[in-house]
C-alpha cells in the first residue's frame, strides 16, 4: 500500500505509481500488483483509482464522442469522414438523413463539407461509425476550423464547459469543440476570431498550469473591452499582443481559485451550450439554409428544443 507520486506530478512511461489495492485506469498498467505509468502525463488519484492524464497523443475515437469531421469520399450510401487520428470514420446516410432521401447523397453533403457528428460505434474490429441524428449535429457552414492537440480538449472545454462557455460569452461567437481536437469557430468579425484563436492557443500551450480559466477570463475581458471601444476598426496585432503579455503577468500574481465555474452553473455539456447560442437571435447570423439536410436537422433540433421547454 503505497503511492509513489505527488498529485498532478509529471510522470514518465514505466514510472512506478502505486502498489497495493489500487486500481489501474487510463494511462497506466498493472504488473504483479504494481501500477506503472504508460504515458508522459500528470498522475492523479481518485478514490483508489490511479490514472495519468496524457499531455500528447493522437485522437482515438470513443463511443459517444462529439467530433468534427471533413467528408473525404461519397461512396454509395456512405460518407467517408476524416476525423483525424489513425482511423477514418464512415457515416451512413440512414444515420444522417430522414427517409426518403435521394439516391445521390452528395446532394446533401459533399466532399470537403465539415460536419459535427457523434461516434456511435467503435471497437477493435469495426472502424468508427458516425451519426448525425442528435441535437446540434449538422453541417458546419462558414466559420473556420482550428486544430489543437486532442489531449488538450478537456482543458479547452473546462469542467462542465466552464472554459469554452466563458470564451463564447466574452466574444459572442459560435463554437463547436470536437473531442478529436478540432474547434469550429464562427465569429461576427475578424477581431473576435483572432482573439478566440489566441485564447485557444494560450490554453493549448499552458494546458497543465493552474488558474487557467481565470487568466484567460481576465485576458479576454481586457481585450474585448479594447475591441469594443475602438469599434469597427480592427486593432493592429502588435498592440494587442503586447498588452496580453502584461495582462497575463499581472494575473499570475493574483490567487483566485474559485471564480471560474460560477458563470456557468446551469450548463451541463457542450451540446447544451450550443443550444443556448442558437436560441440567442442576435448571434444567429446563419442564412435560412438552402440545404435540405440542414433544414431537416434544424427542424429536428427545434422540435427537441420545444419538447424540452
Amino acid at each position, binding site marked *: 500500500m503505497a503511492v509513489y507520486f505527488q498529485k498532478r506530478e509529471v510522470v*514518465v512511461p514505466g514510472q512506478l505509481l502505486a502498489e497495493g489495492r489500487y486500481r489501474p485506469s487510463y494511462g497506466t498498467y498493472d504488473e504483479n500488483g504494481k501500477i506503472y505509468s504508460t504515458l508522459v502525463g500528470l498522475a492523479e488519484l481518485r478514490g483508489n483509482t490511479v490514472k495519468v492524464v496524457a499531455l500528447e497523443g493522437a485522437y482515438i475515437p470513443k463511443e459517444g464522442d462529439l467530433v468534427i469531421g471533413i467528408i473525404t469520399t461519397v461512396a454509395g450510401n456512405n460518407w467517408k469522414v476524416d476525423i483525424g487520428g*489513425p482511423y477514418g470514420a464512415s457515416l451512413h446516410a440512414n444515420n444522417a438523413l430522414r427517409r426518403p432521401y435521394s439516391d445521390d447523397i452528395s446532394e446533401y453533403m459533399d466532399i470537403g463539407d465539415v460536419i459535427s457528428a457523434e461516434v456511435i460505434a467503435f471497437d477493435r474490429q469495426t472502424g468508427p461509425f458516425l451519426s448525425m441524428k442528435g441535437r446540434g449535429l449538422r453541417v458546419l457552414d462558414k466559420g473556420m476550423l482550428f486544430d489543437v492537440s486532442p489531449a488538450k480538449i478537456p482543458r479547452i472545454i*473546462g469542467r462542465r464547459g466552464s472554459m469554452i462557455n466563458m470564451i463564447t460569452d466574452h466574444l459572442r461567437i459560435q463554437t463547436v469543440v470536437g473531442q478529436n481536437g478540432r474547434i469550429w469557430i464562427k465569429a461576427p468579425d475578424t477581431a473576435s476570431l483572432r482573439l478566440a484563436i489566441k485564447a485557444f492557443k494560450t490554453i493549448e500551450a499552458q494546458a497543465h498550469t493552474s488558474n487557467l480559466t481565470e487568466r484567460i477570463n481576465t485576458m479576454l475581458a481586457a481585450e474585448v473591452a479594447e475591441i469594443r471601444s475602438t469599434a469597427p476598426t480592427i486593432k493592429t496585432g502588435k498592440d494587442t499582443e503586447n498588452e496580453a503579455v502584461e495582462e497575463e503577468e499581472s494575473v499570475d500574481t493574483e490567487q483566485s481559485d474559485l471564480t471560474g465555474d460560477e458563470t456557468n452553473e446551469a450548463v451541463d455539456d457542450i451540446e447544451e451550450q450550443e443550444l443556448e447560442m442558437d436560441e440567442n437571435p442576435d448571434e444567429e447570423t446563419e442564412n435560412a439554409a438552402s440545404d435540405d439536410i440542414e433544414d431537416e436537422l434544424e427542424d429536428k433540433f427545434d422540435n427537441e428544443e420545444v419538447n424540452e421547454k
Partner: protein
Amino acid sequence: MSPETKPDFLISPEGLRVDGRRPDELRPVELKVGVLKQADGSASIRQGKTYIIAGVYGPRELHPRHLALNDRAFLRVVYRMATFSVPDRKRPAPSRREKEISMVIANALSPALFLEEFPRAVVDVFIQVIQADGGTRCASINAASLALADAGIPMRSLVPSVAVGKADGVLVVDLGDEEDKYGEGDVPMAILPPTEEITLLQQDGFFTRDELLEAMQMGISSCKYLHELQKEALKKAYVKKTPDGEEGDVDEDEFDDDLETDLGESDMMEDE
C-alpha cells in the same frame, strides 16, 4: 579526412581507454526531447561525437494498406545515416546495413510499446544519424524511445541501450569508433528497466562465456544509468513547458473528467 590509423593501444598502461575513460565509463550523454516542430514526438542524443535525431509520427493511418496488422499497430522504423555522417561519404541509397539496423531497432522497441491499442494503424519512427562515432544503433534506441514517449504513445517503459565491447582484452562500456573498429568484440544490448528484460542482444567478435555474462551485467548497469538520464530529459522537457513553474495551488476544478469527488483520497494518503 586523413586516413585513420590504428592507435598503438586501446587500453593505456594506466588502464584508461583511448579517450581517457575508465572501462565502465560512458561518454558524456546529452538528451533533448521535443527538438522537432513538425513531428508528433522527437528527441536528439549526443553521445560523444555521435549525434542522432529521432522523429515519431502516429499512430496514424497505414499506407500501403497490405502492411496493416489486424491486432496491433505496425511499428515502422527507418534508420538513415546522413551522407556526411562518416569519414568517407556515405552513399545516399539505403544500404543493407541500414535496413538491418532499422529492423533491429524495431525489434528492440516493440516489446516496450502497447501497440495492441491501435490495431491497423502505424507508428512511424524516423532516425537520422547526423554524425556517427560508434554506438549509433544503441544511441538511436535511446533517442527513439524518448521520441515515442514524447508522441504520447503508451509504453511499458523507456528503453535504454548501450554497447559493451572488448578492447585489448578488457571489457569496456559504450564503445567509441576506434574501439569498435580495432577492438575484439561488440555486444549491443537494450533492456526494459523495471523488469530487466533484454530486448536487444547482439554480438560480434569473440567472447568467452564468462566474459559475455560479465559484459551483460555491465550493460545492464549502464542501461540503468542511461534510463535515469532519459527520465530526467523527458521530465525536464515537460516541466519547462509550464511557464509559471509548478508553484501555486493546483486547481481541482477545471478538467471536465473530474467527475467524481475526492472522497477517500485524503484518507488514503494518510495511511502511508
